[in-house]
């Protein structure tokens, strides 16, 4: 026993072997991840005291760093990015790693804000596209209505033609006196035929418009499906993060 005793009255004095055992116990606890252990009741008269204080100091800083880094990352995984690692008291690797974590949370904060903005823009886009779908639906309905009118127009043209034909027959029956009327009837018949052929052309055009508008509606529906999937994926990603976070909290 070579230790000099500078203990106060009533305080038990220990030899160097005791302090070496204590230091070993604390260091082993720390290496097993228990950062709570410290050397207590250090006898400042012992020549080992500076070493024992140094061990405590090393553990204090390691412990503080783990708590700081853990808290900052736990907040970040909850979507709160203001909780930075406090740099005070940390030097060297501790300080550099703290800066790395803080840069990461600053970046996450930035990305989260951009993502939120993008989500807002996507929501606006979905609304615009829904409006476009409605307009295309109206256009489609309008062309169907026009197509129904073609049947009526075509019927009128046929009947006009029939009336003209009958008029020609009646004109022939009255002989010379009906000649002028026969010319009029023939013109009416030509007009009816022109009207029929023009109606057919318009009908073709309307069919083209309808095909285009139904293609437009299909495209819009596909775009909406993709956007809906993105919304669902974003929601699932958020949920997954919450699942991941739970065990991290308990640790």
């Amino acid at each position: 026993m070579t230790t000099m005793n500078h203990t106060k009255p009533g305080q038990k004095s220990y030899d160097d072997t005791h302090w070496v055992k204590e230091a070993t116990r604390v260091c082993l606890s720390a290496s097993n991840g228990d950062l709570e252990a410290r050397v207590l009741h250090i006898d400042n008269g012992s020549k080992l005291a500076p070493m024992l204080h140094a061990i405590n100091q090393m553990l204090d800083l390691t412990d503080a760093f783990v708590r700081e880094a853990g808290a900052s990352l736990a907040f970040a995984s909850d979507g709160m990015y203001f909780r930075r690692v406090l740099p005070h008291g940390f030097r060297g690797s501790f300080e550099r790693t703290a800066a790395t974590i803080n840069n990461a949370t600053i970046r996450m904060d930035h990305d989260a804000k951009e993502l939120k903005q993008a989500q807002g823009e996507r929501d606006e886009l979905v609304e615009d596209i829904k409006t476009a779908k409605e307009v295309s639906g109206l256009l489609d309905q309008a062309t169907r209505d026009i197509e129904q009118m073609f049947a009526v127009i075509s019927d009128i043209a046929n009947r006009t033609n029939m009336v003209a034909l009958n008029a020609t027959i009646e004109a022939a029956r009255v002989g010379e006196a009906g000649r002028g009327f026969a010319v009029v009837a023939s013109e009416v018949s030509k007009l009816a035929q022109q009207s029929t052929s023009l109606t057919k052309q318009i009908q073709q055009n309307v069919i083209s418009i309808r095909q285009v508008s139904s293609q437009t509606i299909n495209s819009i529906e596909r775009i909406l499906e993709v956007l809906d999937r993105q919304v669902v994926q974003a929601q699932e990603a958020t949920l997954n993060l919450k699942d991941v976070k739970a065990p991290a909290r308990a640790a």
Partner: protein
Amino acid sequence: MARDWSLTGNERFFDHDEIIVSKTDTKGRITYANEVFQRVALYTEEELLGKSHNIVRHPDMPRCVFKFLWDRISTGHEVFAYVVNRCKNGDYYWVFAHVTPTYNEHGRIVSYHSSRRVPDAGALEQIKPLYRELLDIEQRYRTPREQWEASLPALVGKLESLGLSYDELIFTLCA
């Protein structure tokens, strides 16, 4: 023995590179106090171990801040606070305290850990008048419970008027 509340008005400081560390059991009794703590608060390790952490309580600290702090950590949350402490001789020192619970392998809180850093001077300028305001409210009441019951709504109201959570306020101040 009556508690010695005498104050000298002298402020003590520690270095920016240093952290005052203490650990307590779940009842708030000190189980560890590092060298910086001992040096700044003018206590020896033997004088601190086993004592309530109240040993460094300063009368200028509003009770509602401790009430708030205790409610937060006992439910498992970390908490930050600007705190003025009293040294053994009546001197005082300001800290920016970070208190966290320590869990055992079953997820139960087994102890509390406090790291205290040098507070930002700008933050203290904003905190001091707020604490003064809270203390003025508390001084109109007699029992500690009446005191914090009266001042806690004022603290909450202050946060609401700023539109910040407590943590956001703290980090805004120290940023």
